[in-house]
């Protein structure tokens, strides 16, 4: 590790500044995500034994990680016996080369792709485009951000940061739709027509993988839009790309995860489609690419390996007061929010060193996580590593920046009801005052929270 300064990294707080500049948008973003969080709560409380399910899910994943090599080899054996071709990629470059070579072998010029955070992580779209292959993302949210030339800002709701009027403009420009003032039904219908043309003319369909079952060699993909299946069944070639931690031992174990995933993600009892791809359809090819790309390094880190249990439900983002206020782009990493903030320093601690500080350590992420990752404890552990190596002053300055995000909007601050908890844990008053000054700029200082804090602080001293 070389020298470390705030300049050498993507600074979360300065990236957030762009987003929090627009108070209405922050307010709206915060509410939209909190609404999803509340739906999750209703869904979770309707299931008998929810906490037991979370415990089971955590234990199944912990077991699988402790035998990861065996399960991956078993999976490869079964999938090959089913007629799929299995490939292994050490890193993003190898993954992209493998996919490209498969596509080239069938002279593919157009590929459709359903949601896959892994291919985002590997930068696959741009790689293939440079090689002359058109890639069309077929999840509506992903198509929206693709047309806007942006990455997803959330792992389950990729366009959660976009207003309907912006989508209206984007579609008018790229798909020649009428201006509708942002009529969601009209825009979704137009996208449906546009994407159906692509599904029926694509030479290949790529998908992510939610779960890979070692026992049967099946890959399981969950969507609401039906876009993975529309692509895979129409094209002669299916390429499924998976991070190696997606493996689970048997179909019986899958039941536990399927009960947790959609409820944690959006409050639905299950996604509209849960598709089991086991054998290619007659006359067609199915390929599965298993990717490491830093996962085995994370597996070796005792304090952080449980982050590999993640099933990418997004619940920790929806509940995070910092994510809701600062937006997905402020993290500068493919996976934003609390889970991204414990995965990214393992990839590049210099670049992502500010992310573990982009948290109030309120613990809400760990409370909702369906696989019981102790996210806030890992955030704290990364902070200690970063502060020990590079001086406590960096940590302090970054904590102050988070305070700025929290204080940038007094209404949100009050609504979140986390002030006391947050302040008691992390902030001396001098930092709060200077953070508030730094972040509120032309805005008036939010009276209420500061007073509340001062009262609290006085009481505490006496």
């Amino acid at each position, binding site marked *: 590790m070389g020298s470390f300064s705030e300049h050498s990294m993507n600074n979360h707080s300065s990236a957030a500044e762009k987003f929090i500049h627009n108070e209405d948008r922050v307010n709206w973003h915060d509410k*939209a995500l909190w*609404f*999803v969080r509340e739906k999750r709560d209703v869904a979770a409380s309707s*299931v*008998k034994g929810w906490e*037991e399910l979370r415990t089971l899910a955590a*234990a199944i994943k912990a*077991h699988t*990680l*402790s*035998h*990861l*090599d065996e399960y*991956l080899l078993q999976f490869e054996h079964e999938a090959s016996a089913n007629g799929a071709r299995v*490939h*292994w*990629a050490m890193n993003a470059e190898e993954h992209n080369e493998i996919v490209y070579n498969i596509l080239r072998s069938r002279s593919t010029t157009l590929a459709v792709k359903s949601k896959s955070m892994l291919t985002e992580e590997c930068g696959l779209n741009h790689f293939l485009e440079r090689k002359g292959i058109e890639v069309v993302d*077929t999840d*509506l949210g992903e198509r929206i951000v693709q047309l806007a030339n942006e990455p997803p800002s959330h792992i389950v*709701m990729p*366009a959660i940061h*976009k207003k*309907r009027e912006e989508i209206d403009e984007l579609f008018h420009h790229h798909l020649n739709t009428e201006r509708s003032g*942002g009529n969601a*039904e009209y*825009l*979704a219908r137009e996208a*449906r027509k546009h*994407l*159906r043309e692509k599904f*029926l003319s694509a030479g290949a369909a790529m998908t992510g993988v939610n779960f890979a079952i070692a026992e049967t060699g099946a890959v399981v993909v969950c969507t*609401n*839009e039906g*876009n993975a*299946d*529309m692509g*895979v*069944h129409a094209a002669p070639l299916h390429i499924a790309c998976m991070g*190696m931690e997606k493996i689970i031992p048997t*179909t*019986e174990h899958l*039941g536990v995860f*399927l*009960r947790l995933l959609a409820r944690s993600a959006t409050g*639905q*009892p*299950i996604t*509209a*489609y*849960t*598709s*089991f*791809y*086991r054998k*290619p*359809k007659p006359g067609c090819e199915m390929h599965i690419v298993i990717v490491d790309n830093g996962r*085995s390094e994370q*597996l*070796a880190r005792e304090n952080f*390996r449980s982050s590999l249990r993640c099933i990418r439900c997004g619940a920790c983002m929806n509940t995070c007061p910092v994510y809701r206020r600062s937006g997905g782009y402020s993290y500068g990493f493919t996976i934003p929010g609390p889970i991204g903030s414990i995965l990214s320093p393992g990839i590049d601690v210099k670049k992502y060193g500010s992310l573990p500080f982009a948290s109030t350590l309120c613990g809400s992420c760990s409370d909702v996580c369906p696989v019981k990752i102790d996210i806030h404890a890992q955030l704290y552990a990364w902070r200690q590593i970063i502060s020990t190596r590079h001086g406590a002053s960096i940590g302090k300055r970054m904590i102050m920046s988070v305070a700025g995000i929290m204080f940038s909007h007094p209404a949100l601050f009050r609504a979140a009801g986390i002030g006391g908890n947050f302040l008691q844990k992390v902030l001396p008053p001098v930092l709060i005052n200077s953070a508030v000054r730094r972040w509120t700029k032309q805005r008036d200082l939010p009276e209420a929270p500061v007073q509340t804090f001062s009262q609290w602080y006085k009481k505490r001293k006496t």
Partner: protein
Amino acid sequence: MSRDPIIEKIRNAKPPDSSLPEIDVSRFSDESGKAETFIRNLESVGGRVVHISSRREISPQIAALFPDAKEIVSCVEGVDCGTIDTGKISSAKELEKLDLAIIEAHFGVAENGAVWVTDKNFFHRSIPFIAAHVVVVLQQEKIVENMHEACARLNEFHEGYGVFISGPSKTADIEQSLVIGAQGPLSLTVFLEY
């Protein structure tokens, strides 16, 4: 081929054995009526239920519910309201204008209103997705309580492809407004047979 180096790295990195837990399914059973729960959940995800007591009722019901459907495929034995020659179809492209598909489900799941269908239930895997409207025929006695029971049954199926379908396709990607009918069907109706 990076398989061996990856496996080697995992062997050096992985933690000591952590035991695989037993799943005691009885702890998750809540004894609510399976059919009512199925219906309630299916309706909550945008699906519709039609009760029938005999398969003979299916064709007339379909004529009444989908009066404008021209291209219809029936993959259910004894339901002969199909209008296109399925023997000739070999690609999804030929199904592009499909108005309605009728398929049979192996079983349903009460806790989420899902039905399980596989390669055995259709002659082309695109059928449950490309049709504008989908009708699924399900025997009421074949509803299981939850995904534990459902997944325990899946190894009876050795088909190359299977899917749990819970309601019609949907999206909320535009400002979280729910739109029924995304890239797949615009509606899903389950004909529940007593």
